[in-house]
Every structure is written in C-alpha cells, then in structure tokens.
C-alpha cells in the first residue's frame, strides 16, 4: 500500500507516462519483425543462461564453504592454498580465465592423443563443461572470501554452548556454525548471484549459445544492432529483478 502511494507522487506519474511513451516509441519506430523468427532460439538461450547461473551458483557455493572454512580456522597448509586460490580468481579477469580453460586446455589435446579415446572425450568436446567449470570457480573464489568473514563472524558463545552440551564436531558444524554463517551472508549472496548473472554472457565467447549469443546471432544475421541489445538488456534486468525478489522472500523466511 505504501509502495503504491509512493508511486502515485505527481512527478513519478509524469515520469511513468514518459517511460510508457518511450516504450511505445521503441515499439513503433524500431524494428522488431525479427522476434518471431528467433523466438524458439531465444527461449532456448534464456533457459541455458538460467541453467548455467543456477548450476554454477550452487556448485560454487558448495565449494566456497570449505574455502571459507579453511581460511577462517584451517591450519596453514589448508588456509594458504585457499587464500591463494581466492586471490588469483579475484585478481584476474574472468574472460581470461575462461579462455585459459577452454583454449589453453584445448591446445593440449593434440599433444595427448589418448584423451580423444577416453570416456570423457564427448564432454571435453563440448563447450559447456568449461563454461560451468570457469563460472563455478569464479563464484567460489568470490564467495569463499565472503564465507571466510561469515565463519569468523559467528558468535563464539553459541559454539561454546554447543560444545558444552557434548555435541559432536560435525553436528555442531552442520546444525549451528554453518546455518549461522549462511544467515550472515544471505544479504550479500543475492548481490553475488546478480554479479554471477552478469558474468554469464562471457560464455558466449567459447561458443556456448546463451541468450547473449542469440542476440549476437540476430545482429549478425540481420545487421540490426540496437534492438536485440536493448531487448537483451531488458531480459537481464528482469532476471536480476527476479533474483532480488527471490532472495528477499528467502531472507524474510529465515528467522533473524
């Protein structure tokens, strides 16, 4: 209700009207006749973008937990590799990491002919395993740093209480430490996931056909430049909005 009232301020109504006019102008004077032809491809691309986003975020988060734990409380021989990994991932561009994985590894294949006869070859031929690997490592690198702070930030009293009741260490980690750490990072997790969404179009540079690649295809087929890009930006904004909403609902359901 308050949100509605906030929208009803006079200047906002004028701005919304202007925005509607802008959309109308875009709809009428720009070229959209290519949409029906590319619709199936676009849906497929959108699905692939979301699939990559979800899979790499989940896998990346699972990897981030041990990375954060190792840095927060691990012995030096675990903490140091974990810290080095996070520094390297965060210190170099993702595009370079993707190309190193895809073309760097690819350049090794001809030197080792047995790879081509191995069971993994059908997967190594595809582009998506490299995309998933690169994006997972990237998410883990950034989130590992966040989880380090989260694990270190959990109130020691709670852990001591669990220990004094004789809770086994693994149960303590699973039931108390991890949930508390995750609750601490939930607000940043939504932001990190949007950053991950914004990283997905880079996989198009190694031939994965995500929604970005579809827009490039439209551009190269029809020489229409702006319209596919504008629509693409709108699609990413909608997905980012949905992510924000989902995390907000999730946060509200977690007891604070």
């Amino acid at each position, binding site marked *: 209700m308050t949100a509605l009232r906030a929208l009803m301020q006079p200047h906002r109504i004028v701005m919304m009207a202007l925005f509607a006019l802008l959309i109308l102008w875009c709809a009428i004077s720009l070229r959209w006749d290519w949409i029906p032809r590319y619709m199936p491809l676009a849906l497929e691309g959108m699905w692939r973008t979301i699939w990559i986003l979800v899979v790499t975020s989940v896998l990346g988060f699972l990897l981030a937990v041990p990375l954060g734990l190792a840095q927060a409380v691990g012995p030096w021989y675990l903490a140091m590799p974990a810290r080095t990994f996070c520094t390297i991932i965060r210190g170099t561009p993702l595009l370079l990491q993707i190309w190193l994985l895809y073309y760097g590894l690819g*350049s090794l294949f001809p030197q080792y002919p047995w790879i081509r006869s191995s069971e993994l070859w059908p997967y190594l031929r595809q582009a998506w395993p490299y995309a998933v690997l690169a994006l997972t490592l990237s998410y883990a690198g950034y989130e590992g740093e966040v989880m380090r702070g989260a694990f270190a930030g959990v109130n020691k009293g709670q852990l001591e209480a669990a220990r004094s009741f004789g809770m086994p260490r693994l149960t303590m980690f699973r039931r108390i430490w991890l949930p508390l750490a995750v609750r601490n990072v939930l607000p940043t997790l939504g932001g990190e996931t949007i950053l991950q969404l914004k990283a997905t179009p880079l996989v198009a540079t190694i031939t994965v056909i995500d929604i970005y690649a579809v827009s490039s295809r439209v*551009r190269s087929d029809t*020489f229409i430049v702006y319209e596919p890009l504008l629509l693409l930006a709108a699609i990413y904004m909608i997905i980012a909005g949905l992510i924000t909403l989902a995390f907000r609902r999730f946060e509200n359901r977690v007891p604070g």
Partner: protein
Amino acid sequence: MKKTMLAAATIAAFVAGAAAADPVKIGIAAEPYPPFASPDSAGNWVGWEIEVINAVCAAAELDCVLTPVAWDGIIPSLTGQQIDAIMASMSITEERLKTIDFSDPYYNTPAVIVADKAMDIEPTPESLAGKIVGIQASTIHQAYAQEYFKDSELRIYQTQDEANQDLVAGRIDATQADSIAMADFVATEAGGCCEIKGPVANDESILGRGVGAGVRKGDDALREALNKGIAAILADGTHEKITAGYFTTSIYSK
C-alpha cells in the same frame, strides 16, 4: 543557448584529438587472419591485404589509417562511423548490400570445407550431417552453413582462428572457410592434422562475388576513390606483384 555552447565545449573537450583533416579509417578485423592480415610480434599488421590497402590508398591518394575492430561488430562500427571503410576480406553479398555499399572486388576465394585427414568427409550437406561444423560468426560461411548444413551441429566462433584451434583440438569435425586462408592454415605445423576436403557447391546469392571494400551507404566519394585505387593497382601490376609475394597463382578474376 549558453547551455548548448557549454555542452558543445564539453563534448569537444571530451573528444580531444578531434582531427580536422580526416584521415580515412580503414577497418580491419582485430584477429590474426594469415596470410591476409595478422599482427606481428613488433605490433605491426602485416599480410597481403595490408599491402593491398596501402597500395590502393596510395593510388587513390587517400590518407589511410588502419583501425582494428572486432569482426562481428565491423558493420555496426562502419555505420556507427567508428571506421570509414571495411577492408577485411569481406565478400560482397546481397544481404550485406542491404546495409552497406561495396567497392569493386579486389580478390576472390572459393569457400571450402577443412577436416581431419583421417576423416572421410565430402564438402556436401549429406556427408556433414550429424557432424560438428565450426564457423566464424557474421561470415558468408555462417549464412551458407545455416542454409545448407541443416543436419549438422553448427558451432559459431568469434574468429576463424578459434575455429581452427578447435579443429586441431578435435572439438569440431570440420570447418567451412575461405580457401586461400585455409591453404595457408593446413600448411602450418598445427594445421598439419587437417586437409582441404574441397569447395562447397557455389551459391552466389550467399557466397557473393568476390571480396570488396565496404563503405557506408551514400558515401559515393570514398567508394569511387577506392574503385579508382583498385583499378589502378590492377592495371599497373602492383596487385600482381603483391600477390606474387604470397601466392603462386593469381587470386583475382573478373
């Protein structure tokens, strides 16, 4: 009024280095495409096409500057005025003529299929059915493959070089590209795995009629100047001389 003046001043300051006497910006693809255009380790662009560009500009008395841009954005760069002409082995096709104009052709090259020597592949849709074919985005080959190789899995690369790299790695079964560049590629150590399997069936409406210089629609002055330059180097033997430095046979036919 004052505000517009201020805005103009800001813009002028922002694009400091605005030149009054415009040199002609010749757009080339920012990727190694030997033997036509590739960067060397000293940071210069070298190759057959680079020499031809220099010769054409000299003959047409144009002050040209090479401007590397991404291939798949080269036409938007032209229409968006970042460059003035495209001389990047771009074939003259009907589809492209809807958006830009072309000069007369300055070389032609048929489209061929390249694949691993050990593979029994013919340059036909039937033989390539079920195979993974790598092609460069925004090329005549992409248009051709999308039209004819409907039963193949097409993998689209930003540069031909990446497709070649994946052909060597075995990630794709075949690639379709310009025959001259491919002849150069299979002669290299890395390209030794593969051979040219033959030209694809011609379809002039897609594959075009030779390579020309792309210019903006209506930029007739530049188009005429480039035509004059191309005609001049064809007439005085410069074209032939440059070609002899790279190839054993002529790569130009009327």
